[in-house]
C-alpha cells in the first residue's frame, strides 16, 4: 500500500542519516515521493504553488498599482509598457490580473476550508451517531444539493450584501453537503472496525473515540475533498463577480474584470476578456489536476466519491 511504501522510504532515510529527520526534511521527502508517484500532478502542483506565490507577493510582482488609472493609456492594447494592455480608465491589466489572484484564492481557500470543515464535522456526527439525526440531516443535505451551487451562492451573496466575507460564506454554504456526504461515508465504514469497537469496549467516551480514533482517518479524504473543490469555488467566485454580487469594485478580481470589460464599450476589447479568463482557467486547471493527483496517491478508493 502507498503509506507503507512511504514509511519504508522514510525508515531508510532515517537509517541512512542515523537520526530522526527534521520536519522540514520530512516534508521535502514527502513531496519528492509525491513527485515520483505522479509527475503530472506534481507539475500542476508547481503551477498552483506559483499562482499562490503570485497572490502573496502581488504588490512586489505587479508592475503598476492595480487601482491607479493612467489617463494617457485608456483602453490600450498590449504593448511594451502594458504587457496585457490597459482598461477603459487606464489601469494596467497585468497588474490587475496579478492582484486578482489574491481575491480569488482568498475566497476559494476560505470558502472551501470553512464549508468543508463544517460539512466534515456534520458528516462525522451523522455517521457516528446515525439514527434519526442522521436521517433528518441526509434530507437537509439532499435539499441543499438540489440547488445548483451558483444559484444558492448568488441568492445568499445578494441577501447578505457585497463583500469578501459574504462571498466566502455564500460559497462555503454550497460546499457543506459535499463534506458532509464524503466524511459520513468514511465514518460509517470506520465505525464498524475492530479497533473502534475495542476503544468502545474499554469505556472510551464518544468524544474520545471520535477525536482519537475516527478523526485522524478522516484527514486524507478531507484534504482530497478540499483541493478538488478549490477549482469549483474559484469558478463560482468568478461567476459571482461577473454577475456583480461578488467582491465589490474597485478591488480587482477576475470576475469583476470580465464584468468591467462588458462596460468598456459596445465591443469589449479582447485583451480585457482574454487575460482574466485565462487566469481563471489556468488556476482551476492547476488545482483540479493537483487534487486528482493527491486523491490518486492518498486514497484511490475515493475516485468515484469526490
Amino acid at each position: 500500500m502507498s503509506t507503507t511504501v512511504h514509511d519504508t522510504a522514510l525508515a531508510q532515510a532515517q537509517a541512512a542519516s542515523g537520526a530522526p529527520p527534521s520536519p522540514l526534511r520530512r516534508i521535502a521527502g514527502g513531496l519528492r515521493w509525491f513527485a515520483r508517484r505522479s509527475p503530472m500532478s506534481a507539475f500542476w502542483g508547481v503551477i498552483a504553488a506559483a499562482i499562490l506565490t503570485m497572490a502573496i507577493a502581488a504588490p512586489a510582482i505587479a508592475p503598476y498599482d492595480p487601482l491607479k488609472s493612467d489617463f494617457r493609456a485608456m483602453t490600450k492594447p498590449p504593448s511594451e509598457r502594458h504587457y496585457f494592455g490597459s482598461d477603459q480608465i487606464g489601469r494596467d491589466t497585468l497588474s490587475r490580473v496579478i492582484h486578482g489572484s489574491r481575491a480569488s484564492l482568498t475566497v476559494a481557500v476560505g470558502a472551501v476550508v470553512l464549508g468543508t470543515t463544517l460539512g466534515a464535522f456534520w458528516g462525522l456526527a451523522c455517521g457516528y451517531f446515525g439514527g434519526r439525526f442522521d436521517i433528518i440531516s441526509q434530507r437537509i443535505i439532499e435539499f441543499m444539493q438540489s440547488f445548483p451551487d451558483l444559484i444558492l451562492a448568488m441568492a445568499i451573496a445578494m441577501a447578505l450584501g457585497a463583500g469578501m466575507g459574504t462571498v466566502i460564506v455564500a460559497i462555503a454554504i454550497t460546499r457543506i453537503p459535499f463534506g458532509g456526504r464524503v466524511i459520513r461515508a468514511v465514518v460509517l465504514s470506520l465505525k464498524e472496525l475492530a479497533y473502534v469497537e475495542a476503544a468502545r469496549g474499554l469505556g472510551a467516551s464518544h468524544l474520545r473515540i471520535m477525536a482519537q480514533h475516527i478523526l485522524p482517518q478522516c484527514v486524507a479524504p478531507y484534504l482530497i475533498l478540499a483541493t478538488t473543490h478549490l477549482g469549483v469555488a474559484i469558478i463560482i467566485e468568478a461567476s459571482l463577480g461577473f454577475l456583480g454580487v461578488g467582491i465589490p469594485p474597485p478591488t480587482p478580481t477576475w470576475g469583476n474584470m470580465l464584468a468591467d470589460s462588458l462596460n468598456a464599450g459596445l465591443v469589449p476589447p479582447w485583451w480585457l476578456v482574454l487575460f482574466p479568463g485565462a487566469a481563471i482557467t489556468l488556476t482551476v486547471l492547476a488545482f483540479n489536476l493537483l487534487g486528482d493527483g493527491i486523491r490518486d496517491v492518498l486514497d484511490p478508493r475515493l475516485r468515484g466519491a469526490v
Partner: protein
Amino acid sequence: MHSYILRRLAFGAIAVVGVSIVVFVVLRILPGDPLIAIFGPEGFTRLSDAERARYMADLGLSDPLPVQYLHWVQDIVRGNLGHSFFRSESVAEMVARRGPLTAEIALISVVLSWLVGIPVAVISALRPNSLGDNVARFLSILFLAVPGFWLGMLIVLGLLFVFGYRAPLASVSFIDDPWANLQIVIGPAIVLGLGQAAYIARMARSSLLEVIREDYIRTARAKGLNRRVVVALHALPNALLPVITLSGVLLGFVLAGSIPVERAFGTPGLGYTMALAVSERDVFVMQNLVFLYAVVFVVLNIAVDLVSAWLDPRIRYG
C-alpha cells in the same frame, strides 16, 4: 412501481415546501435591509424614518415574517409572481416571454452534450490509455476548468472579429422566425453543452469500463459476437443508466449556468433576467425566480428518478 411513483411525488411535494422556506429565509430573513438593496447605501441614508416605514409597509415588509411567508405562498398559488422594482413588466410575463428561450438553450445543450460526450466516452473506453483516450480526458478536464461565460465572451468576440457577425439581440420565438431564433440560442447552447459533455464523457467512460468487465459481456464475446456489436448493444445500454441520472442533474445546473452565459452572450432569456435582477438587487424578482428554478430542479430530479426506475428494475424493487 406505483408505490415508488407515489413515494417520489410525496417527497417532491415536501421538497418544494422545504425549498420555498429556504428561499424565503435566504432572501428575506438574512441580515441586509431590502431598502438598502433597492436604494443603495447612499439612497438609503437619504430616506427619512417615516419614508422608510412607508416603503416597508407598501412592500408588505413590516408584517411579521410568518405572515409575509404566507402572503408570498398565497400569491404564488394564485399565479401572481410579483413585479420588478425597476420595470413595469410582471415576473409572470417575463417568464412567459423569456422562459422559452432558456428552455430551448437547456434542451439543445443536453442533446449536444450527449452527441459529443457519448462517442468520446466510447472511444476512450474501447482503448483505455491510448492517445485518443488521453486527449479526450485532457479535453474533459480542460472544459471543467473553463468558465462557460468566459468561453461565451470569447466566442462572441471571435465571431465579431473574424466574420463581423453578431447574433441578433431581440428575442424571437422559434415559430415566428426559426433561423433568427436559432442564431440567438445556439451560442449559449454550445457553451453549456460542451461543459456538460465533459461531465458526461467522464461518467460514461468510467461506467462503460465497469460494465465491459462483467460476465455477460464476456459471454457475448465468447459466443463470437463482434466487439462493436457487443459494446453498442450489450454494454452501452447498461452503462448509460448512471449517465441518464447525471444528465438530469446537469440539466438543472445548466439552468444555473445559463445565468452568466446568457449575460455573456446578451441572450434575451430568463437567465439574463436573473443576472439583471441580481445586479440590481431586485429582491422580489430574485425570490420568485429562484423559487421557480428550484421547483424546476425538484421536478427534474423526480423525472430523472422515475425514468431510471422505469429503465432499471433494480431501482424499482431495491
